[in-house]
């Protein structure tokens, strides 16, 4: 019964995503414009092909990565409030971005070097360093609680360093704030390719490691007594979590709430073991972010809203409604 429900849900999510993709190709700086009208115009064709298509697809991919990472994080830490940024990767990425932006103003040589690495590269490096730091502080992945605490500490400390840099070079504040709120406007085909590759690897990893998450849901001791090789599989799960989050954050900035909300939304619709939950969360996250991206460029076109604000409003609003409905019943 549940398996049929989750298949239906997956089909619905994919169908909605495809509909959004079609809609996303039509919505641009002039608001809604039909594809058919654009057919003869070469500039319009280029806009659709080079900007709208990779952007919509990229938003979906980034959302899927965050949704997947959220499901893994909530399973791994057995904490419904866990989100993908728990291992410090968010503040690490923000710090990397801030460093890159600050270095840009220092000297032409630094600017040239930074132009090559890009904010994206710096953010990914920052996220990776932050996760490694967390693992170092927690002395490995064996203690869930210690890992959690180390992640929070690393997040706070790196966040403070980032604030220090931002205060010292106030010029970067606007750009940095834009990065912190997340943006899908900079996604090109190369970003899509990268995220698609990472998503495929992480989905496979999540699928294979799902039995551990199911086991962990019963408690660490039970999981160990079930004969699961916990240490190795936990390390692999952390790797999946870090990779998925790092890839998404580096390309789109810190998009709030998708990773936290997607697994909850799926759980509210169907009860399912983690193997399916991970997959469905990815689909749900992708749908959420693709919808937010669409609204971000549609509502006040040709200007843009920060997409992170919209994900919080959309996801949060729906979750609140769900809680309210459940309370009333």
């Amino acid at each position, binding site marked *: 019964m549940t398996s049929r429900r989750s298949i239906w849900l997956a089909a619905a999510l994919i169908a909605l995503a495809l509909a959004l993709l079609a809609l996303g190709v039509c919505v641009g700086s002039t608001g809604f414009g039909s594809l058919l009208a654009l057919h003869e115009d070469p500039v319009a064709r280029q*806009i659709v092909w080079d900007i*709208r298509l990779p952007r919509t697809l990229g938003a979906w991919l980034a959302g899927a990565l965050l949704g997947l990472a959220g499901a893994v994080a909530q399973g791994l830490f057995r904490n419904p409030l866990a989100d993908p940024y728990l291992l410090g990767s968010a503040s690490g990425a923000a710090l990397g971005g801030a460093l890159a932006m600050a270095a840009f103003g220092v000297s032409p040589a630094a600017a040239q070097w930074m132009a090559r690495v890009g904010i994206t590269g710096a953010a990914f490096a920052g996220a990776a360093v932050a996760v490694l730091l967390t693992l170092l502080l927690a002395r490995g992945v064996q203690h869930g609680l210690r890992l959690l605490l180390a992640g929070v500490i690393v997040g706070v400390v790196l966040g403070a360093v980032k604030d220090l840099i931002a205060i010292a070079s106030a010029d*970067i504040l606007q750009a940095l704030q834009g990065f912190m709120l997340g943006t899908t406007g900079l*996604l090109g085909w190369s970003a899509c390719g990268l995220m698609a590759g990472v998503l495929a690897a992480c989905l496979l990893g999540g699928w294979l490691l799902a039995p551990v998450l199911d086991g962990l849901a019963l408690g660490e001791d039970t999981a160990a007594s079930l004969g699961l090789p916990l240490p190795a599989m936990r390390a692999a799960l952390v790797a999946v979590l870090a990779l998925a989050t790092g890839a998404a954050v580096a390309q789109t900035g810190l998009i709030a709430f998708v990773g936290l909300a997607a697994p909850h939304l799926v759980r509210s619709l169907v009860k399912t073991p983690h193997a399916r939950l991970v997959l469905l969360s990815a689909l749900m996250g992708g749908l959420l972010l693709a919808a937010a991206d669409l609204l971000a460029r549609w509502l006040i076109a040709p*200007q843009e809203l920060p997409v992170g604000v919209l994900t919080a409003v959309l996801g949060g609003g729906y979750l609140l409604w769900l809680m309210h409905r459940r309370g009333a019943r």
Partner: protein
Amino acid sequence: VRRVLGTLSDLLGVPRAQGSDRLWREIDAGVMAAAQSLPPYVHGKRVYFEVSRGPYAAGESSFIGETLTRLGVRNVVPASLGPFPRLNPEFVVRARPDVMFLANRAMQAAGQYPGWAELAAVRGGHVCTFSAEAGDVIARPGPRMAEAARLIAQCLADKSPR
């Protein structure tokens, strides 16, 4: 800027005629001189001025936009969008500016936004970038606005397509 200069003048007890009004006339004359120094082919060119990554652009109603108008070029970002709107990158591709300005704090090479590599301005090298010091002069509204106009005009003359 003019109003702030006037207030400053009053606060410091300098008569406006010798203080703010004179300074404003100097700025005004500087901008005018910069506009007159431009070769004729620059006139009426469509320009886009990016102030920060995002892309945040300088609209017609911003002080940078006013300087651009005085220089006789047309801003692709209309005043109706506000002084410094955050644009959809697609807007710029559609607007097809002849010359693009990237202030140093835009922190991007042109063409890093998806789709921009194909813009005529980017392919033809009609892109102005400024050093950190020049960027400082341009991005702050103040007594150095005449100098900013001179920097912008110089780059316009150098980089504008004929």
